[in-house]
């Protein structure tokens, strides 16, 4: 059953039978076996096959592929060629459909593919950081000079009372408010993770429009942050604000910036494809960008947990800054150094 099929072209025999008939008679068993395995994969997935059947599947596929090219050369039986074509394309989908298990993929992704994808996009990342920073600095300067400009950058629903008309004590209390765990969790699921992941994915997908919306999104994100910072700074609450913001903000901001970098990758491929055809460039960078976005969504999940649960229950400034520092250090080490050896070994996986 599991023997590797004979690939030789059948010899010319003395009897009157056609060579193509002879050929079919000799190979048909292989095709039927492949067909039977495929039917089971179609019904139950790869788990429907025993280990040895799984091992023989690629051999059967290649044997059938070679049958097809022989058949095209020697046979004029249209039904046979059509059968082989559809059998080959069906098994092609299975053989080249997915090489590794989902679990291997996830661990590969976390161990090296994600950090490698980020490192390969360092200039796009720098651009992304630049636009966020520019927005932040501009808004900070403007709001510091004239607090009324605050309303230009932060709309009322976003500010929810945290605006220049609020008394300092209220602003301070907002930063140290304790909430119960359940509320924190709901808050996490609804506004934080849901909204942030959507914004992040949009920042990536909008890169398809030459990156202009991505750029605006990042810049606007920076503006809001700068305006907030200026407001709290004017009341002498800077240290408290950053203590409130950074424990989750390090992860969250970085994730949004990464999504922006992913958007710039798409824009790069579209606007400056270089020597490659535009579609090839888009496909290559699109894949790299997708991995960055997946990583960023995971980061947003973590940030949401920190924000929804940790921040609402821990009010000590030292602990808050400790956590902020630790997450910053972790992401720098992880994104900067994880999987370097493996990435060098495998080469850029986006082709």
């Amino acid at each position, binding site marked *: 059953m599991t023997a590797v099929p004979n690939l030789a072209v059948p010899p010319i025999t003395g009897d009157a*039978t056609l060579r193509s008939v002879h050929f079919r008679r000799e190979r048909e068993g292989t095709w039927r076996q492949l067909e039977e395995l495929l039917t089971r994969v179609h019904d139950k997935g790869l788990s429907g096959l025993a280990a040895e059947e799984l091992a023989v599947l690629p051999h059967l596929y290649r044997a059938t592929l070679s049958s097809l090219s022989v058949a095209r050369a020697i046979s004029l039986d249209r039904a046979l060629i059509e059968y082989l074509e559809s059998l080959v394309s*069906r098994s092609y989908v299975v053989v080249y459909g997915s090489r590794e298990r989902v679990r291997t993929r996830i661990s590969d992704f976390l161990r090296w593919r994600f950090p490698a994808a980020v490192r390969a996009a360092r200039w796009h990342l720098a651009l992304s950081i630049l636009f966020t920073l520019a927005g932040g600095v501009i808004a900070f300067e403007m709001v510091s000079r004239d607090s009324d400009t605050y309303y230009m950058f932060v709309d009322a629903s976003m500010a929810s009372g945290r605006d220049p008309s609020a008394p300092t004590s209220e602003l301070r209390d907002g930063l140290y408010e304790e909430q119960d765990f359940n509320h924190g969790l709901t808050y996490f699921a609804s506004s934080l993770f849901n909204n942030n992941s959507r914004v992040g994915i949009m920042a990536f997908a909008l890169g398809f429009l030459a990156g202009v919306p991505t750029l605006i999104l990042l810049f606007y994100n920076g503006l809001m942050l700068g305006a907030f910072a200026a407001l709290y700074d004017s009341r002498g609450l800077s240290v408290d604000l950053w203590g409130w913001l950074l424990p989750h903000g390090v992860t969250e901001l970085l994730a949004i910036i990464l999504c922006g970098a992913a958007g710039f990758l798409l824009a790069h491929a579209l606007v400056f494809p270089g020597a490659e055809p535009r579609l090839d460039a888009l496909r290559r960078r699109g894949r790299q*960008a*997708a991995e960055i976005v997946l990583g960023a969504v995971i980061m947003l999940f973590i940030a949401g947990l920190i924000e929804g649960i940790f921040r609402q229950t821990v009010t000590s400034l030292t602990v808050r800054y400790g956590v902020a520092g630790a997450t910053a250090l972790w992401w720098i080490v992880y994104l900067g150094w994880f999987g370097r050896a493996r990435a060098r070994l495998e080469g850029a996986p986006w082709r």
Partner: protein
Amino acid sequence: MAVARYLDRQGDGVRRREIVTPEGIPIQFTLASIGERMTALVIDIAIVMGAVLATVFMAAIASPGKDEWISALALLLVTLSRHFYFAFFELRGHGATPGKRAAGIRVIDARGGSLEASAVLARNLVRELEMWMPLTFLFASSVVWPDAPVWMWVVAGGWLIVVALLPLFNKDNLRVGDLIGGTLVVVQPKVQLRADLAAPTAAKALATATRSTYTFTEAQLEVYGVYELQVLEGLLRGEAAADPGAVSTVADKIRTKLQYTERVPLGQDEKFLADFYTALRAHLEKRMLFGKRRADKHDRAR
């Protein structure tokens, strides 16, 4: 590595695409139609919605009174399924989500390589922009943005139309996600091996005798080419069997053309055609071995 070519060989309006496998052998896929893709999409969206609703409903029954937990769970589920349902199932199911399976279509790599996880991710993350955002705006804008101005609907509707129609405006029916992921959506081919007409066993099924009763001269076998052979194959397989008299009509025509002198008894036309098919195929296949492929009866070049 592999370069894909376009084919519209049969001229029947069905779009085909040739993929060169990593082994270097070209194989053909039929591109999925817009209708098939819409069917798949509707089924998938129904599954996502149904699964989320069912989970929330069961959670609500299991723990009454804890509304916050339930809404948290629901939102988390919606977020995860909206971003990852398609990618997850396309990775697990060899390029087919449950909806695509039902519609009989699949995602493949457009250049013939294996379907990479990153390609699947890329093509599905873009759905956020292509599908979910405009859909949310059209059907649930009061939740997302309470007093959304009218122009927002116009923008969302316009965007949805532009993106939804994009597959109509390129020859591969690609959507934005396919462009970014470098993928194609094709019809899952059907497989059925039918009997070989030239094999003795098959001939037995078609006619009473196993051996050829009718013989043909070399000159008579030179009249037709591959195209005619395969039309004859279709006739013998009963593909165009609308007209019961077709067999004798064709047999008469062939006999006239060949100037066939041997008498064929009444009711033996099918046997005559089967014998002619076998003889012609043997002849043409032999020529093919010497590199002389004769396309049809007008092909006199070699």
